[in-house]
């Protein structure tokens, strides 16, 4: 059953007279309990897509068209109060920076407890007790003692666990994880990812994972969407996308991953890169937005934006010369 349906979403960036479309023609669906990954370079629009889903776009950004539906209800139509009650209760989000996302002056137990008081009207004692249970669930050792600790007394990994505990406290339907492991050590990263996957599976929480780390997304998500310059360029099952990336950009991303045992990884050959940089929102190239960096570019790519095509094995791609 579809939980979240994003359809033809367009996000405008107001600048001067005419707004620029920072994101356009983005459509995807996430079913209950599904894991969906959104991959792309910095500035491709993945984070603002997440903010739009949370209903937290702030000027100069605004939704310019399309719809975001949660259980069939368009969230743009909700008033501010309804939207606020949705956040934290049904939609939760964790951020890249566990260092700054916790209030430095409140014990972490209190910050978790606040969720129960805010969203479920729990009593102070009850909330405090449940906060300790949640800390235990995210495998924080000695939760009774840790609940009284302040954020600066915890390590980065512990803080991210606390963030997960806060986000999952009210068993939300959808967890948006915006680069949740970027600021962490590699060893801690895998623990956090496993923890998220496990807890969400147990609760039936769907995950929208946002990352520039294709490897992480592929290992965690069933479906992956690749964004480039505000558009989704490829969307497929994650197993497929690694085996046979269809879009030249995805191919570039996959080729630029270091692999264990490959010559690049042992330092004998340069890692593959994609030449050029992401164009700025103000001057997206006409036609296919990837054409200036693409190895397969032909005349049609300069003039005509490719339409979305369905791939034979399932999945969607936006390229004149895919395959």
């Amino acid at each position: 059953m579809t939980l979240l349906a994003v359809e033809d979403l367009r996000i405008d960036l107001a600048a001067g007279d005419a707004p620029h479309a920072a994101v356009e023609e983005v459509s995807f669906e996430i079913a209950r309990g599904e894991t969906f990954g959104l991959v792309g370079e910095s500035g491709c629009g993945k984070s603002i897509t997440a903010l739009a889903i949370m209903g937290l776009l702030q000027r100069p950004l605004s939704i310019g068209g399309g719809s975001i539906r949660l259980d069939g209800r368009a969230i743009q139509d909700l008033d501010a109060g309804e939207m606020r009650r949705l956040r934290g209760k049904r939609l939760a989000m964790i951020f890249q920076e566990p260092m700054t996302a916790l209030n430095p002056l409140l014990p972490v137990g209190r910050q978790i407890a606040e969720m129960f008081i805010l969203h479920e009207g729990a009593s102070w004692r009850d909330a405090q007790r449940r906060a300790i249970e949640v800390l235990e669930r995210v495998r924080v050792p000695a939760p009774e003692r840790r609940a009284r600790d302040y954020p600066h007394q915890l390590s980065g990994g512990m803080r991210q666990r606390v963030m997960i505990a806060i986000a999952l406290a009210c068993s939300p339907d959808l967890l948006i994880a915006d680069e949740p492991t970027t600021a962490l050590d590699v060893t801690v990263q895998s623990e956090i990812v496993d923890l998220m996957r496990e807890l969400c599976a147990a609760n039936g929480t769907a995950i929208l994972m946002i990352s520039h780390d294709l490897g992480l997304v592929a290992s965690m998500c069933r479906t992956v969407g690749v964004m480039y310059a505000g558009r989704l360029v490829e969307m497929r099952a994650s197993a497929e996308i690694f085996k046979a990336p269809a879009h030249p950009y995805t191919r570039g991303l996959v080729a630029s991953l270091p692999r264990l045992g490959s010559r690049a990884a042992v330092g004998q050959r340069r890692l593959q890169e994609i030449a050029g940089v992401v164009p700025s929102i103000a001057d997206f190239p006409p036609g296919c937005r990837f054409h200036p960096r693409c190895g397969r570019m032909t005349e049609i790519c300069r003039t005509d934006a490719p339409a979305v095509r369905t791939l034979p094995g399932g999945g969607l791609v936006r390229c004149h010369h895919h395959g």
Partner: protein
Amino acid sequence: MRVGTNTVIGGTLFAIAILVGILAPWIAHTDPVMDANLMLAEEPPGREFWFGTDAQGRDIYSRVVHGARISLTVGVVAQLLNSMIGTALGLSAGYFGGWWDDFVTGLTNLMLAIPSLIFALAIMAILGPGLTSLLVALGLTNWSFTCRLARASALSLKSQGYVQASRVLGYGDIRIMITQILPNMLGPLIVIATLGMGGTILAEAALSFLGLGVRPPYPSWGSMLSEARDQITTAPWLSVFPGLAIFLTVLGLNLLGDGLRDILDPQSRSRRA
């Protein structure tokens, strides 16, 4: 954490002033108002009258001790009022921005442009002398610095990760302001309030000196100074002791405020360590 000597001295001076105010009925020798004795007028300081007597023969020591009650009440209550007004306006202005911010900023600039003592004088002239009008006059006129500080802190704090995060978690605006932003800007506000309290005590003294403060015969340090004006050459002790009381209390508050600034600012804390 090491607390500086100045902070200890400041805290002690202020604590003594508060204690004297609280214990006034027990440590005063005579009733500050009723025990007038013209036979003993203008006695210099001595064994019986520690600080001497005034023109009506009242014990100055007892009057200074009782005066602490009024001066400190005005200082503390009026400053609390200032702090609350300034914090509420500044915090909401910085947090919400927009027309409300423009309005509050304009109002603050207006308040800063009018000398606060003149403004207080005007309010006193309307309300008439007395303790309540003193509190109102001084409590409504000195919030502009607090307001500016609160607004600036709110502006920088609202972009902090945890404030953004709490919005994502479904916190409402009021809850964000009270639980996330206010506690994090309390340090500098406490410092400003402590320093401001000294200023408020001085302002009370000034208003009372000008005859618009506490009505005689009740003693406040400022009104005592005012009454002593004519005898300053013949009986200087009349003005020296209330003046000394003001001086020591305000000095104590300023030292305490400076010390608190160092204690509450994490950067200066790590510099010292």
